[in-house]
């Protein structure tokens, strides 16, 4: 399975942007045009005027300095910070659906989820829906462990992050 969070080869950038029509298209378009590869991107408003975008970029595709400077040229981008995994608060969420080959394994999965401090959203016979919110590398391990149980669908949010204190 592809690990989406090979954190050593990515950069995590937090951009504070003005909440204007098309701002996400501007950011995404810039990445496409300049050949910067986006690993994940998460965005939501923080208040009436601003939104915060967390972008995880492939470190191989371009020097971080260029990515930051080109982003900063967008008029609607107010501030850009590079976030270190160690210092910042960095979280990602995953939703998983499983179809177990044996209903008896539900208890095993429940124990596994508890070990990761995840939650079981619903169990219906051999079908389970789970969620986990944690560091992206935790999500990788979680999904690795779930793999043998038969994952039928999953959705990760991509990382969100804010600078450390």
């Amino acid at each position, binding site marked *: 399975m592809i690990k989406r969070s090979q954190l050593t080869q990515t950069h995590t950038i937090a951009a504070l*942007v*003005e909440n204007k*029509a*098309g701002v996400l*298209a*501007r950011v995404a*378009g*810039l990445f496409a*045009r300049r050949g910067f590869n986006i690993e994940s991107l998460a965005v939501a408003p923080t208040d009436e005027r601003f939104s915060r975008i967390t972008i995880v970029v492939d470190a191989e595709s371009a*020097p971080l*300095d*260029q990515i930051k*400077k*080109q982003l*900063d*040229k*967008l*008029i*609607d*981008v*107010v*501030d850009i910070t590079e976030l270190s995994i160690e210092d910042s608060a960095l979280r990602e969420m995953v939703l998983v659906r499983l179809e177990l080959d044996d209903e008896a394994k539900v208890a095993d999965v429940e124990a596994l989820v508890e070990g990761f401090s995840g939650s079981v959203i619903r169990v219906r016979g051999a079908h389970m829906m789970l969620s986990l919110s944690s560091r992206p590398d935790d999500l990788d391990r979680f999904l690795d462990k779930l793999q043998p149980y038969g994952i039928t669908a999953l959705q990760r949010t991509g990382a969100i992050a804010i600078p450390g204190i």
Partner: protein
Amino acid sequence: MQMDGGTALLKALEFEGVEVVFGYPGGAIMPVYDSMVGGAGPRHVLVRHEQGAGHMASGYAHATGKPGVVMVTSGPAATNIVTPLADAYLDSVPIVAITGQVPYGLIGTDAFQETDTTGITMSITKHNYLVSDPNDIPQVVHEAFHIATHGRPGPVLIDLPKNITDARNPQSAMTWADPIAVDLPGFKPVLDGKPEDITAAVELMLAAKRPVLYAGGGILKARGADELRALAEKLNIPVVTTLMARGAMPDSHELNLGMPGMHGNYTAVMAMQEADLLIAMGSRFDDRVTGRLDSFAPDAKVVHVDIDPAELGKIRTPDVAIRGDAKRVMGQMLEEIGGSAPADHQAWRSTLSGWQENYPLAYEDAEPGAKLKPQMVLERLHALSPEDTIVASGVGQHQMWASQYWKFEKPYTWLNSGGLGTMGYSIPAAIGAKAGMPDQTVWAVDGDGCFQMTCQELITAAVEGIPIKVALLNNTYLGMVRQWQEMFYDNRLSEVDLSGPVPDYIKMSEAMGCVAIRVEDPDEVDAAIERANGINDRPVVIEFLTEPGENVYPMVPGGKSNSDVVVPPFQQKETAK
């Protein structure tokens, strides 16, 4: 004050001091044109193709230093200005484009003449707007002009849905309020360099033994030609002026080595190659200047000054990077230098003058009875035209010869499409320049290929009373492509022959309201130019029949190191290379 959005747009343009708009009407922008009836708003120049309007706005902006304005309708008109927007974006020219759009409620329905104009132009504008509320018009227009002209200049587009400009639509009702100071937390250009960086840069500049000031278009944008000259003289540093910076330093100045790059002169190319310090001032290490990057200026330390921080380190990692306005930073440098004297450049200067002596820009005179040499035509054109003549060039061989053989003494007398290389730029750009600077002579230097792309704007020039002059260097080929086919494709010529026999450029020009003169004989060149320079009531076209096989030299072949610069054949026997 109550008014409709269309009237408000005209008022907003006047508020920004706009004197002339280059435009073309159509469905979605018709309400604005209706508001103009009776003479409201700035002067309007009706073009013959929207692309022309875009380049006119650019030419106007570069020649006058004021932002140019282009106004067109939605859909096909908006896409017709994509080329001039991309052109202005790459050459950092401040223009504001107003496009009509289908009514707001119809956006997204594939309505008649709907295109996603803001989407299409997002990557070729500095910023763009889609306005939904007519009350926003004064402030958006104000912001657009602010963004276009501050920091690194560039094009800004405003898309105006028809419902908010149409007086007959209640949705266009607005209350005029004068714009307030812009509040753009994400747009704060930095003008002054950091003192510690200035100190570090000056230290390198004083110590360098083989320095070169690599002057780019940013100096002209910053209006810093005086500072450039002062800095060069103070430190006794030779200057190369890129294609975008021609005129930033007088060509007659002994420190000016001229244009570097693919078709730069030998000394300018080699000076950069052998330098121990490059002071890149408002220049961006374009591939047409550096040639093969990994062998470019191998021994040079780099001081890089640019108002756009993204240029610093984009191509070449500088030893000292200074974010700031070229004029202000050069002022800071001059102050920092104070009375300090630079290192001795005697050896460097004699190397340079050795190269200048051995490899001057030169061409062989035409054989008797042969076609005109384009270089000779340009030399005569320069010699016989007023000193402050503005020259706008198309793209191709004639562009390189114009840059090489015109001797620029003043800033803002050279207009060309450097970054995008847009054929057809010259005639509309010249018209824009002449509209802004009516007292100066404006020559468009064009190729026969370029001429056929935008010559219809000569009708605009004739009808609107904007008497430009065109030197059409007719070599019957797409010359620059022919040259590459000759040199790099074993002379396998493919689709470059324009010998026609049509069009008849004389009849064509006359039909568009121009005086037209054909020159075949070298002895007629001066008289034709003098006659053209004497005509001021209508546009003039001189068709010069030039040598079809002439090539532009020197040349750094694409992908090759600058050290492999090829000088003209008649100079080659003397070179060791």
